[in-house]
């Protein structure tokens, strides 16, 4: 089997496992869609941003996309890595000829592919159900933000997974990290009502910057919609996390 066929072989199996896992289906796939529908139903009406009249729902699309990307490439991926490591699956796979890079690369690719698919799905629902329009001119900004965001948060997942010692604590640990940050980063509520000191805390973390990088092309729609500074900050988090992950990643279960 050629290397690409081997990677595809592993990827197919990892994607099937993602889809058959109830937690993945409910929290990573269904939840962002439910959130988008709830927010769009709760907040109706239109407003003018930069001289363009847009629906209030348009404000929520970047936030829910941020949620979808992080859920697929960070929360779900971290839980998968910790579970497979603690189950002894990684150790077993290291005893086969499957290259180590494929073991983790394939599962990371599932996270990125799901993040991209969720973003496209949320945009499609926004467009069809809530008339959320994104100019063609800023589509590069959307695509770039989704890809950089998914890749960076995958790297963060591999760095964080090493710090979590059991499969049981993976879900609470990751959710407890991202949920407060969603709120103070302006993912669920308008930034204008968040106290300044909380906003300052949020600007340190990558969630805020991914949200900004998606707001730019979806809501503000200037130029190509690429929020260079925000994307660089997200990418810097990803690269730092990758360097940590490469040095600390563990294949064997912590317990036993």
């Amino acid at each position: 089997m050629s290397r690409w066929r081997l990677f595809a072989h592993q990827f197919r199996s990892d994607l099937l496992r993602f889809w058959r896992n109830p937690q993945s289906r409910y929290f990573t796939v269904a939840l962002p869609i439910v959130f988008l529908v709830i927010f769009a139903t709760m907040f109706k009406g239109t407003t003018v941003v930069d001289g363009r009249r847009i629906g209030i729902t348009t404000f929520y699309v970047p936030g829910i996309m941020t949620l979808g990307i992080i859920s697929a490439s960070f929360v779900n991926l971290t839980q998968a890595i910790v579970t497979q490591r603690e189950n002894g699956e990684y150790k077993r796979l290291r005893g086969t000829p499957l290259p180590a890079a494929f073991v983790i690369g394939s599962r990371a690719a599932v996270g990125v592919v799901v993040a991209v698919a969720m973003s496209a799905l949320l945009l499609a629902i926004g467009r069809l159900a809530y008339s959320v329009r994104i100019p063609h001119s800023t589509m590069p900004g959307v695509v770039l933000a989704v890809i950089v965001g998914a890749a960076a948060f995958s790297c963060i997942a591999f760095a964080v997974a090493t710090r979590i010692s059991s499969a049981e604590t993976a879900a609470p640990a990751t959710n407890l990290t991202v949920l407060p940050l969603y709120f103070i980063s302006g993912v669920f509520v308008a930034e204008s009502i968040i106290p300044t000191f909380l906003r300052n805390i949020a600007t340190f973390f990558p969630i805020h910057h991914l949200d900004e990088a998606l707001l730019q092309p979806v809501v503000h729609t200037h130029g190509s919609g690429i929020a260079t500074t925000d994307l660089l900050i997200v990418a810097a988090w990803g690269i730092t996390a990758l360097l940590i992950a490469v040095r600390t990643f563990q294949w064997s279960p912590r317990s036993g």
Partner: protein
Amino acid sequence: MSAAEPSIIERHLGLDRDVRARAAGVSVISVSGLRKSYGEHEVVRGIDLEVHRGEVFAFLGPNGAGKTTTVEILEGYRSRSAGEVSVLEEDPAAAGSAWRSRIGLVLQSCTMPPELTVRELVELYAGYYPHPRGVAETIELVGLVDKRDARTKQLSGGQLRRLDVALALIGDPELVFLDEPTTGFDPSARHHAWEVIANLRELGKTIFLTTHYMDEAQALADHVAVIVAGEIVAKGTPETLGGRDRALSDISFRLPSGTSLSELPHELTANAGRREDGRVHLSVPDPARALYALAGWALERGEHLDSLTVGRPTLEDIYLRLTDGQEHTE
């Protein structure tokens, strides 16, 4: 072609003989002076092992004796502190994926992916190897045909272990490591697993087995080594381990009422003793001769010898003597 030169056929035959001769004696695993320390604590203290092609080698020892550490060094999971290790002519610490495709592993514990079926998982692993066995045939070999379309979360403990064995065999390995493969099995599942292992030997596989069960080692192993506190304390076949073949036989019976030990034939009283249970035990080098004397004595007096037994030390007796309570102290 002159008569002195061997024909092509002869050369082939000669080559074949060579290959077979080498195969019979060739070392699949060769370990000398292996040491492993964790900080100050040395858990493996200079051991030597030799495992030949096509044999079942059982590695025995109490928990904490360095057994798992040694196996993980051979499997390539752990580094060593000192010594020489060769597995399939390579150093496991430096071996790559070509080497990994020649070995199969059953680890002590591994949870299977709950989202996949038996067949999907075996197919997944088959894809990792250059020359895998057939998927259906391997599932049949471990007796999981009825469960092939069940998700792994629906399998019992014994069935999961059999799936584990199927994953170890799917790459058609030359060498299989089985780390306590039947722990937690019921007796019928254990005997089924033994048949599978015996079949592997028939196929010419080399098997490195660790186990807590002495009857398992007795039933399967060609050679046995016992590790205690990081050192090999005994090596041999199950029949000769620890001088088992030279050990004294034990003859035991109840004396007829009103008979004292001193009334036994003189040649027997020297080796006789009465234990707390009231039974007489004779430790003798030649049980046939002793039994002849004993039976003659009893018949002559018209007495019955109640509950007469003749026994030789089992592998378990030898193992317990060698490990001497280590199982509990570690």
